[in-house]
Structures are given as structure tokens and as C-alpha cells.
């Protein structure tokens, strides 16, 4: 299972590459007892095909859209660190970089988009503080202080476990919450949402890679998305972009008796960006305003849209030409709506399915009403918090009546 580093973005010492592979192996070992089968292989070589197949979906958060509608989805997703921490769960996160213009106004300068896996960075941070500091320096252009990465002046004095814990708290975030430091909140260095992880990515492919069928008048047909997610009690996952796309791609392989695996290098990639949708002064964005990085061609994990620091212009001068009219660019949601993300997989040859391998589901295939998902309650709460945070001072609008000015 010798995977190269995600995107082949870094030239690492063999020991660090091994550490990354060890982390993948550990995550797989944890999931294998529940979700392992011959229809998924953690070893891409064993799959029997080298042709990379992209599995893609769009990067804009689905949940706020089906809970509250498109306008609220944009507004909440663009709510800086708070929006990112709650909503950016389609394996695509972004941060808006703002700067002050000549008139002293704080304006949108760039949007950074990342699909880099948190676990890769944590692996480096655990084993090699120098390596992780080099990555941050390469991305931000400024060498970070050790205290911003680990909370101490000398991380080499910490044990590996302590380094991982400190880095997770300050930079990586995770199950305990979003990062508390500014490095990966003011920037989008890599993904920090707790369900954009390597384990989630492995899980959703392994979850889908099962030959599940349904009986239609005596004929076995592949089970539907609704049946598959309902059978496991996880209907809410079926409403996102990422989970059904990944699971159903793997399921499509499994029902043909094919084995699926991650193509080398395992990672989450930016598969396409419709840059032509964005115009500056009626023309396409200058080349310097669209920068892919953190990976070889076709394996990029990072996208920055907007002018560099030495350019006096701002991204909010560009427009997005989505419909019949142009709208000014106000945040990252407008960018990731036009970004396709996803992993590459390899799919093995078709093989016969033994009778015992087929599982026939009897769960309902009725449509899943996404709006009724419980996640909508927390998103409605986020909307209330947003409203409260953006309510300005009250002004009198009539006898005994006020309204916020914000």
C-alpha cells in the first residue's frame, strides 16, 4: 500500500511518507471489521487497473441550501470561521482573505479554497515540525512562529503525541472543535471540519462498496440511494453532495462484482473550476488571479482566486456571471459553487457475484425529504446566531416599534 503523498505536492523523507501510509493503514484497519469486503481494496495495485476514475461533486455546502434555501446557504457559508466550522463539510473548505484599501475600507481580496486532508498535516506535525512549518511558509509566504503551530517555543521538546495534540488544538481542529489559533482560520491551509477527514473518506467509499440489491417483481436490481442510506439509518448523509456521490460510485462498481480502491496518491482533489464564470471589467480573470497549487497538474488541492498582495485591485471588483445578470463577488460560496472536488479511484474488472454476496434490501425507496433532516435544526440555530450577530443598533421606526439597522 505505498501511497505517495497527496497530490505529490511535497518531497518528503521516506520516513514521513511511511508515516502517512501508516495513518491510512490505521484508519482502514479501524473500519475494515465493519465495512471491509472484497469490493474495496486499500491497495490500489491489487485492484487490477491503473486507470484513474474521478468521483466528483460540487464544493458548495448542500445542507444549508436544502434546509434554508440558496440565499441563506450563501450568506451562512460565507460567515467566515463560523460558517466554515459548521457548514463546509463537502470536503472543500474556503477562507476569505480581506485587506484594507486606499480609502481604509476592509474588502475582499482573495478566496482560498482547500481540499487537503487534515490527517496528512497532522501526520507531518506529529513527526516533523520543520516540515509542517515549511508547508505553512510555502502557502502563506510568512514563516509562522512555533507558538502559532504548537503553543510552545520548542516543539522538539514535546513528545509526538503532545505535538499532535497541540497542533490539532491550534491549527488542525477536529473532533474537539475548530482550531483555536488563527493560522488555519484566517487562511484555508487544509480542511479542518471534523467530517472532512481521511476516515470519513475511507468510510463512505467502503460503505458504498457493497453489492446491495432490491427485488423488483422478481428481478434483482441495484439498490437505490434511498434504500442504501435508509438501511443504515443515515438518511441525512444522502442529502449532501459528497456522500451519495462517493458511495453510489463505489456501489455501482460492487454490483458488477468490481473491486474499487483509491488511486495513488490518495487524496481529495480539485477536479475542475469554471473560472470563465468570473469577469473583471467584462473580461476573464487575469491568469494571476487564479492560482492552483499543492499538487501536480490534475492533482491540485488548493485554489486561490483573487489578486496577489502587490496588485491594488480587489476580488470584489470582479463579478460572477451566473445568470442573465452579473453579481459582484462577495465571498467564497460563489467560488466553490463552480468547483468540482473529489478523489480518484481505480476500478477492477467485472467478476461474477456469488449468491451469498448479494444482499437484498427491503427498505423503502421513497424519496428522502432532506428538509426534514435533523441537521436543519442546527442550521436554523446558526441562522439565528447570524441574525443576532448582524443586527445593528435599534432605531425607532414608529410608536413603540424598533428595528435593527444592521
Amino acid at each position, binding site marked *: 500500500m505505498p501511497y505517495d503523498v497527496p497530490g505529490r505536492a511535497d518531497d518528503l523523507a521516506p520516513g514521513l511518507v511511511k508515516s502517512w501510509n501508516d495513518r491510512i493503514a490505521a484508519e482502514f484497519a479501524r473500519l475494515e471489521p465493519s465495512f471491509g469486503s472484497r469490493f474495496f481494496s486499500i491497495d490500489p495495485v491489487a485492484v487490477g487497473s491503473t*486507470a*484513474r*476514475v474521478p468521483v*466528483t*461533486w*460540487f464544493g458548495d455546502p448542500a445542507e*444549508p*441550501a*436544502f*434546509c*434554508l*434555501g*440558496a*440565499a*441563506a446557504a450563501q450568506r451562512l457559508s460565507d460567515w467566515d470561521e463560523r460558517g466554515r466550522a459548521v457548514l463546509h463539510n463537502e470536503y472543500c473548505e474556503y477562507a476569505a482573505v480581506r485587506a484594507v484599501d486606499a480609502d481604509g475600507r476592509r474588502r475582499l481580496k482573495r478566496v482560498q479554497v482547500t481540499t487537503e486532508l487534515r490527517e496528512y498535516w497532522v501526520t507531518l506535525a506529529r513527526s516533523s515540525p520543520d516540515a509542517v512549518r515549511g508547508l505553512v511558509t510555502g502557502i502563506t509566504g510568512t514563516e509562522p512562529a512555533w507558538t502559532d503551530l504548537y503553543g510552545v517555543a520548542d516543539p522538539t521538546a514535546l513528545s509526538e503525541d503532545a505535538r499532535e495534540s497541540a497542533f490539532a488544538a491550534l491549527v488542525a481542529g477536529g473532533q474537539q472543535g475548530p482550531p483555536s489559533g488563527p493560522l488555519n482560520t484566517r487562511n484555508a491551509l487544509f480542511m479542518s471540519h471534523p467530517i472532512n477527514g481521511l476516515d470519513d473518506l475511507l468510510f463512505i467509499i467502503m460503505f458504498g462498496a457493497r453489492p446491495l440489491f432490491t427485488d423488483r417483481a422478481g428481478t434483482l436490481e441495484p439498490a*437505490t*440511494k434511498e434504500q442504501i442510506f435508509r438501511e443504515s439509518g443515515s438518511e441525512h448523509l444522502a442529502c449532501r*453532495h459528497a456522500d*451519495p*456521490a462517493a458511495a*453510489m*460510485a463505489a*456501489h*455501482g462498481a460492487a454490483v458488477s462484482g468490481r473491486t474499487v480502491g483509491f488511486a495513488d496518491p490518495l487524496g481529495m482533489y480539485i*477536479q*475542475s*473550476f*469554471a473560472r*470563465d*464564470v468570473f*469577469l473583471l471589467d467584462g473580461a476573464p480573470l487575469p491568469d494571476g488571479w487564479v492560482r492552483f497549487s499543492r499538487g501536480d497538474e490534475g492533482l491540485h488541492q488548493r485554489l486561490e482566486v483573487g489578486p496577489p498582495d502587490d496588485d491594488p485591485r480587489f476580488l470584489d471588483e470582479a463579478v460572477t*456571471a*451566473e*445568470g*442573465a*445578470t452579473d453579481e459582484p463577488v462577495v465571498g467564497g460560496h460563489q467560488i466553490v459553487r*463552480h468547483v*468540482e472536488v473529489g478523489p480518484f479511484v481505480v476500478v477492477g474488472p467485472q467478476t461474477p457475484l456469488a449468491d451469498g454476496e448479494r444482499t437484498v434490501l427491503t427498505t423503502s425507496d421513497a*424519496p428522502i*425529504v*432532506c*428538509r426534514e433532516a435533523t441537521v*436543519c435544526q442546527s*442550521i436554523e440555530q446558526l441562522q439565528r446566531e447570524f441574525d443576532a450577530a448582524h443586527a445593528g443598533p435599534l432605531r425607532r421606526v414608529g410608536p413603540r416599534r424598533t428595528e435593527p439597522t444592521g
Partner: protein
Amino acid sequence: MTLQEGVYHAPGARPGRALVLFFLQAAPGADAATVGAALQRLWNVWRGLVRGAVVDLPGHPVPADALTVLLGYGQKAFTLPGARRAVPAALLTGSFRSPQPMGGGRVVVGSGLSYSPEVRQNPATEEIAVQVVAETQLAVNRVVVETWKATHDGTDPATGVAPLTLTAFYQGFQRADGRSWIDFHDGVSNLRSEERAGVITIKPTGDDEQDWLVGGTYLAFLRLSVDLARWRGIDRAAQELLVGRDKLTGAPITAVGADGPVTVAGCPVAGTTEVIEPGNEAFREPPDVTDPVVDLSHVQRANHHARPASDASSLRIFRQGYEFLEPHGAAPGFRAGLNFVSFQDTPDRVVRILRQPTWLGRTNFGGDPDVDPAAAAALLSVQAGGTYVVPPVDPVEPFPGAGIFA
């Protein structure tokens, strides 16, 4: 609430052989109530025709010829003075752009499809679109004339202005050979019947203002003319790689070999000659391919085979197009093409297909426009185009969408 008639998605349903799509423009300054009342009168005329009743021929019915009439509303309908409904958000981002003042211009920014150079005004942007389908040309044409009669009779004698005016109409016909004017098979891999409702019908969102649309659909229309002289200048192998199918049999192409395009093995099955014949059902949807040239063909760009089709991310649409042939002042004296008509739960599916680079973005039809002159050429030109919301049938409304007006 149920879908309006005229979307032939049920198992075994076949659309009638003839199409007319026409557009109604509201008089300048007319308010929503006035337009609604005029539309009510027209609706009564059309329901009569569906039963074979002509206003001027009481007691003398005519053959209805399986006539269906479907009503759609464009953005302008929602901006009439006094309109009771907000513009559906999806119409704002899912509309086509206007032509350039001197003609031409992209129909969607990022797309390789442009208006024809002589098109300076898009006739398909009025308040109301009406799709008429029947088994005979007479039945659909009769609706046009009866509509004119009713609007003419509704003219205010004092001002000479009618609340609604028929501004443009387009005719089309079905062809039984499953091919298009470029001689290749077309529409062969349209959705399976059990998938259609999930693609077509608008689903609940968290936006209460959009609830009235649940169960309805969006209609996308593009009148596409094809440059047959240019097409005939491309040799057969190159044509096949642009389309992604064998020209004669319709078999999907999977690779490019030393001797040219390689089609999927076993298609057409023994005893048949074309993919549309019984026994070839399994071959109608092209398989996933890894050959980079074939991957850029039209059929591969237009359908990434993502499951399930009901997920908006799959970008699957339900096509119900009709070919056309019309006299034309320039050589060769006629214009041939396709009335592209599709139904989907959001027009976002259509515009994303047209602008995303891994889909049909930047290409006019198929292929790689950066390296292949044939792919960069304007084979298809847009004569008119629009997106319209098609409200569901609400038993308490006198006609679909009546709530917009009163």
C-alpha cells in the same frame, strides 16, 4: 400537487409528434391582475382545445390529437406590478444571457454555445412560455391561431393594446429514426423512466417562499441551429470522436485505436444494426471511459453517469426535444436544428452542464477546443433560449401559477 401535462416521463409515455412553443408578452404597464385575467381567458381557450372544442365552432368539435398545453413563467412574470410571488431564486441564477447588441454572444458565460451572429434579440424571454404538444401539426398550430384570436379579441379598442401578445413561436417535430440532423443517434441515453420524476420535479427546500413550486419543474429551451456545411467538412472518424458514438450503429465509443474509434464490444447485438433496436438497451448509456479523447466527446461530457440521477449534482436532465427545419434567407435556403427542451428540478443542472469545463463548458459540442479545430468551431448556434418555471397543478388554482397574479 402534480406536474402539469406535457412532460412525458411516465413509463411507456411518448411525446406527441408535433411541438409548438410560443411566448406571450405582457403589455407595457399592465399589472399582474390584468395579465392574470387575460391568461385565465386563454387558459379556458386551451382547455377547450384539449377537449377538441373551438371557441368559434360551438357544438362542432375537432380532433384533439392528444393535445397537451403546459404553462411556464419567466422572470418578467414575477416583476409585473402587483405580482404576488417572488422570483424563484433558481430562475435568477439559471437564466440565459441576452445576445450582444450587434448579435451573437455567449448564452451562458463559460459555455461554448453562442447566439447566432444575426440574433440581436432573444425572443424567448417573455413573461410566459407555452409548450404545446400533439400528434399532429394541425393540432399544435391551431393553438397558436386560437391564442391569437383570443388576444386579438382582448385588445382595448381605445388603446389598441392587448394585455398579452403572442410574440414568437417555434415549431418542431419528432423523428422516428432516433437520429438528429448530423445523422448521429440523439437522445438515446435519456433517463430511465423510473429515474425521471426524481430529476424533473422540484423538491422542498427550506425557503418557504418557494414551497408553492414543489411538485413543479423548470423548463429549459434552446433553439439550436446546426451548421451542416461545417459538419460535413469533418471526416467520419473525427465526427464520431466528437459525438462519442459510431455514426451508423450508434454504438458508444470506448477508446481510440490504431485504426480509429473503438466501440463497445457486442453492440449492436446479433440480428440488429442499431443501438436503438430492442436487445441493445444495455448499450444505450455510454460506459465510463478512461481514454482522454473519448472522455471529451459530447456523450461523455453531457453525462458523467453519476448516481442517483435525482441528485442535482448528477446534472442529469430529462430531455424532450424536437427537431426543426425552416426556410432561411441565406444559403442553403433553410435552417436545420433542434428545439432543445429539457425539464429538471432546477435550471442549475442545465447551466452547470453548459459552463463547467469537465462537462460541456467552453466547447461548442464536444472535443477539446484548445487543440481540436473541429471542437472549437461553431457547429451549433443559438437562435433563442429561455428558462421558465412550470408550477404544479394546484387544485385550488384556476390555472397553474394563478397565484402569481392574484
